[in-house]
């Protein structure tokens, strides 16, 4: 069974295995297909029309499935690898070990935003940005420039305390847990992290930066923590909603999986620190 670990706790060998598997997926072209899929959905998902991957209730199960597919691809390269998660409430500066040269490499240089160290630097020759929205083929970042601060623990707590999963109109203007976690409303969690990293992470082709997977693995963990806290709450809407993926509707692009199939992450993986159920938490 796959165990997803906090990136800060990975051993040097685990970091090496993870980055090597990423580079192998890049070499074979598998990696770029994931970038293309994400960009296709992010450009097609609209507040007033069909919406599946973003700005809609299925934001969370869609990305859970997307990450499962990516993790399965990594495990074909190296069965020992699993997706680490980045708790950006804890590792919240550009000096975090996440951004060291033995892992993801650091921020971009001032002149053009180009990442100059680590396995994914353009100069290392193994990680060209091929699926892109402009002419630049090098990985870029501007850590902390687009927005000064990553979300805090207190901001995450406030969102986790929201008891209702999602609300009409089921888009970027919704109240409820999903849209506050996604970040179109309120303190802004998920969206703000994309902006904080900058470079490709701030664009529609954000999976070009390997930190995409670790950011979304943590967003996914926050969904699991919300479920543990609100055992009587569930995915909404239940049925009959135009342009929106209901609980038992299949999701594109797979067409063989529903949000209901994905609610329990423990069918697929566990976390190094599993969310504590509400009853147990209240007794601490």
């Amino acid at each position, binding site marked *: 069974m796959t165990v997803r670990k906090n990136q800060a706790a990975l051993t040097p060998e685990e970091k090496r295995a993870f980055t090597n598997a990423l580079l192998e997926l890049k070499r074979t072209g598998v990696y*770029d297909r994931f*970038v*293309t899929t994400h*960009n*296709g959905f*992010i*450009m*097609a998902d*609209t*507040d*007033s*029309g*069909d919406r599946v991957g973003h*700005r809609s209730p299925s934001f969370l199960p869609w990305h859970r499935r997307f990450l499962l597919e990516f993790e399965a691809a990594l495990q074909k390269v190296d069965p020992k690898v699993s997706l680490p998660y980045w708790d950006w409430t804890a590792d919240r500066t550009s000096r975090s070990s996440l951004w060291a040269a033995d892992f993801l490499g650091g921020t971009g240089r001032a002149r*053009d*935003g180009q990442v100059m160290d680590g396995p994914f630097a353009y100069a290392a020759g193994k990680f060209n940005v*091929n*699926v*892109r*929205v*402009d*002419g*630049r083929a090098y990985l870029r970042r501007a850590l902390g420039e*687009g927005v000064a601060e990553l979300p805090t623990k207190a901001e995450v707590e406030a969102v986790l305390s929201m008891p209702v999963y999602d609300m009409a*109109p089921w*888009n*970027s*203007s919704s109240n409820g847990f999903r849209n506050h976690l996604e*970040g*179109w409303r309120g303190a802004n969690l*998920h*969206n*703000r992290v*994309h*902006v904080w990293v900058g470079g490709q992470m*701030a*664009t*529609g*082709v*954000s999976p070009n930066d390997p930190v995409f997977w670790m950011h979304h693995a943590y967003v996914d963990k926050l969904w699991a923590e919300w479920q543990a806290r609100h055992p009587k709450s569930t995915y909404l809407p239940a049925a009959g909603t135009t342009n929106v993926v209901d609980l038992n509707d299949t999701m594109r692009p797979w067409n063989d999986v529903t949000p209901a199939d994905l609610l329990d992450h423990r069918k697929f993986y566990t976390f190094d620190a599993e969310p504590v159920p509400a009853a147990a938490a209240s007794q601490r």
Partner: protein
Amino acid sequence: MNKITRRQALGTAAGALSALGIAGATAHAAAADSRASIPAGTVDEVYQGRRIQITPATSGAGHHGGHHGGGHDGLPTVRIDGRELHVMRNADGTWISVVNHYETFADPTSLARAAVRELQGAVLAPFAPMGGTA
């Protein structure tokens, strides 16, 4: 005109442009060249050395059709140095673009200027909804 013609060709290849849509796009190109009759909402400015052109949505023309998989009217066309920038309007009236997709802007002009800053001189890739190289 080369770039605009190429963009039209791409749109036609994708089956996105109706005959009416092509006529609309041509009209926009012509409008950008004759500043005498700039309709309301049109922007044509040089910002940090880049030309930003914004033409307002034309109701019912469907010139933007296909980019969201179904022809959404009501979106302006934003170009930087003649290349179209993918833009989207949020339910609360704010705007995002494909180069700033997780950050909202109050209006298309501030969105286009942010895109120019983000591009740092780079040229937008051809408008291809499923990605691809420049």
